[in-house]
Every structure is written in structure tokens, then in C-alpha cells.
């Protein structure tokens, strides 16, 4: 896969490249938005970052020489998200997994009341994971990526994808089993 970080990129594609871009890349807009939405945990931020990532991919497109376009694109999205998170100093997002920091918002009576709603419950649980775990779950379970694709997108070796995914799933199971998380973290 071509590395999106290499190459200067061009501001405008010729018309043929433009159509190629629109045929190959644009259909993955949902995947772009979905990954950004889960990494940033906000629809509005995701919309901005997805747009920025798409425009970056447009500039880098001449450097894309075939292969898995979705993985190439999601790599750009992921980098854009991490850069944004770093810049915006979302401490929660950048620190390693810490149960105290990641106490999910579902401890109030109101949120306990809606905990019966599975979608809400899973959303909270998934959002309570640190981004490195969250992203592998999103890529594997929601986006249906193979280990090889996840490795390419996240720039980590396949062996590490496997172990990260197994840890991420364990955390997710714990977050679901113990929404308050007070009991959970001692067992980890």
C-alpha cells in the first residue's frame, strides 16, 4: 500500500483523476465518517475531520497506486483523527487505559434508566475504551476489516493486531458486564 504521508500531493487532479477519485474513494465516505465518529466520539467533530481527511486523500490521490483503497483511506482518516486529538489535548483519548479516568457516564440514575437500551449501553461501553482499543473493535466488528487491513490502517504488526483485539474485546465485555466499572478494574 502506498504511504499517504509520502509525497507532496497536488491541489487539483486532472479531470480523469478526479473521476477516478470520485469512483474509487467517495463510495467509502460512510467508512470514513464511521471511524472518525467513533474515534472522536462526536458527530460534529467527525464531520469536520471526515471532510478534512477526504480532502487530504484527494491531495494524496496521485500517490495512490492501486491496492486496497479503503485501507489506504482509513489510514489517512486515522492519522487525521489522532493529530486532531493530540492538538485538542483530549487527555482521556491519549492516555493509556485507566478505569478511573474512563469511568463511563452511565453511573447517574438517568443513564442507568436508559441502560436497558442496548444501543445506548453498547455505545457507552465502546466509547469508554481508549482509542487504540476502540479503533480495532470498530474496524473489525463494524467495518468488517481483516487483520491484514487493520494492520495496514493502524500501522501495527498483525501479531499486535491480534493481541490488541483480544484485549479490546475483553475490556468491552467487562464494560458491558459492569457498567459502573467499580468492580471491574481490579480484575484486569
Amino acid at each position, binding site marked *: 500500500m502506498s504511504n499517504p504521508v509520502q509525497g507532496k500531493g497536488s491541489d487539483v487532479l486532472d479531470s480523469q483523476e478526479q473521476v477516478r477519485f470520485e469512483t474509487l474513494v467517495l463510495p467509502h465516505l*460512510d467508512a470514513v465518517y464511521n471511524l472518525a465518529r467513533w474515534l472522536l466520539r462526536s458527530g460534529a467533530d*467527525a*464531520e469536520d475531520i471526515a471532510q478534512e481527511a477526504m480532502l487530504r486523500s484527494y491531495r494524496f490521490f496521485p500517490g495512490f497506486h492501486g491496492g486496497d483503497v479503503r485501507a489506504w483511506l482509513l489510514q489517512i482518516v486515522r492519522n487525521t483523527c489522532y493529530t486532531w486529538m493530540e492538538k485538542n489535548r483530549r487527555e482521556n483519548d491519549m492516555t493509556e487505559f485507566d478505569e478511573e479516568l474512563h469511568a463511563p457516564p452511565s453511573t447517574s440514575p438517568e443513564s442507568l434508566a436508559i441502560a436497558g437500551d442496548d444501543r445506548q449501553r453498547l455505545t457507552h461501553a465502546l466509547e469508554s475504551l481508549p482509542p487504540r482499543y476502540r479503533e480495532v473493535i470498530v474496524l473489525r466488528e463494524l467495518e468488517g476489516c481483516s487483520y491484514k487491513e487493520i494492520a495496514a490502517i493502524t500501522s501495527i504488526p498483525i501479531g499486535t493486531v491480534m493481541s490488541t483485539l483480544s484485549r479490546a*474485546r475483553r475490556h468491552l465485555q467487562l464494560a458491558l458486564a459492569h457498567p459502573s466499572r467499580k468492580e471491574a478494574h481490579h480484575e484486569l
Partner: protein
Amino acid sequence: MSCERGDSVLHAYFDNELDAQGAAEFERHLEHCAECAEALGNLKSLRSSLNAARLYQKAPASLRQKLLVELHSTKPIQVVPARKPWRWLAIAAAILLVAITGWQVISSRRGGDQETVLAAEAIDAHLRSLQPGHLTDVISTDQHTVKPWFDGKLDFAPPVRDFAEQGFQLQGGRLDVVHGRTIAALVYGRRKHLVSAFVWPTIEPDAAPRAGSEQGYQWIIWRKAGMEFCVVSDVAPADLGQLQRLFSE
């Protein structure tokens, strides 16, 4: 998990990432390892609750729209080849041009209804197609060649018809992108003019033809039997109307 197999193998098995031999070995192991069997069951139920919760977040239509406007405002620009003093001026001019056209595109489209927006995108697509080498992906005057060409490239079967006898000669087809989705574009020749007919499926009810013109191009857009059509050309409005009626017959 305390099973000495380590749970990476379990996850790789669960994700269909083991080769046939590895999977068979792990299945044999599963027969006597209650621990792994239980863990596998838990993974399955985790996946089914994730699926049931439909967590996938699709891109909002507004994002798609913004992007298309942005992408279409960056039309190819002739940049003066690098002579240092001029370079920055050229870049600045290019940025200004993009900003101005972008602004015009946005302001001219803002407030327009859905059909007008679609028609504007169809005109852009038609204009792009007129650039050298990009008119048709499949060149044929035979509808029985053009129609099968779309198979497997689209998630719908576009109605491909030749109207040569009525003065609209089918010239070929291509894939194009309008409103963020890949659609069929059919190309017809009318005397010396070209007509693009864009077709894509819709869930909206049938709608009578609406016509308009922009940048010297005529368009007619309508919906019939689950398909949305938009024809674009610089032919006379009456000619375009004739093609519209031919399609609707």
C-alpha cells in the same frame, strides 16, 4: 483466560483468520477445553449484540454535499510552470480562484432544492465527460453491448435503450458520480451535440419532468418507476424534451 493456548488463537479462529489446518487443530482443542468453548460463546454473543445495536454511523447527507461542492470547486487549473517569482503568485491566484468559484458554487446552490442541486451536479458531470478521453468507458452504439457492461459495476440495472431512429444515437456509457453515488451515464449523439443521460435508483415516488438551464446547458430531471433520470445537453430544449419523452415511453 488461563488456557495455555493463549487467546490470540481463539480470536483468530473466531475471526476466520486461521488457515484450514490451524482452524481444524483449534476445533479439536475446543472439544476438550471448556474454557475456550465458553470464551468462544462469549465472543459470539458480544458480536451479535454489537450487530443488533446497529452502531455503524453513516455519513450525514450534509457532509456528502459539502464534499462534492468542495471537490467540484477545485476544477483543473493551469498553473504556470515553476519560475520562482511567479510561482507564489500563481498559487495565490489559484487559491483565490478556488475560493471565488467555491463561494459562487456554494452561494448559487444554497437554498436550491434537491432537484436543482442534482441537476447542477449532473451538469458538472456532463462537462467533465466532454474533456478529452473521458466521454465513454464503453463505446458502442449497441444497447446489448452497453447494458451488460454495467453488470457488476452498479448495484442496479440501468435501462439502456438506443433511440437512433428518433435521432438520438446511443454512443456508449460510463460510470459517473452524482450526489456521492456511482450512477450510470449514457451518452447519446444528437446531430453534432452530445447528451448525457444519468440514471440512478430512487425510493421517491414518480415525479413529473422539471427542466432548467445553467451555464448554457439544458437539463430535465424526473423520476419514474423507481428510477431517477437527468438528461443534460446543449441541444435545443425541445430536443431534450423529446429525449425525455422517449425515455418515459
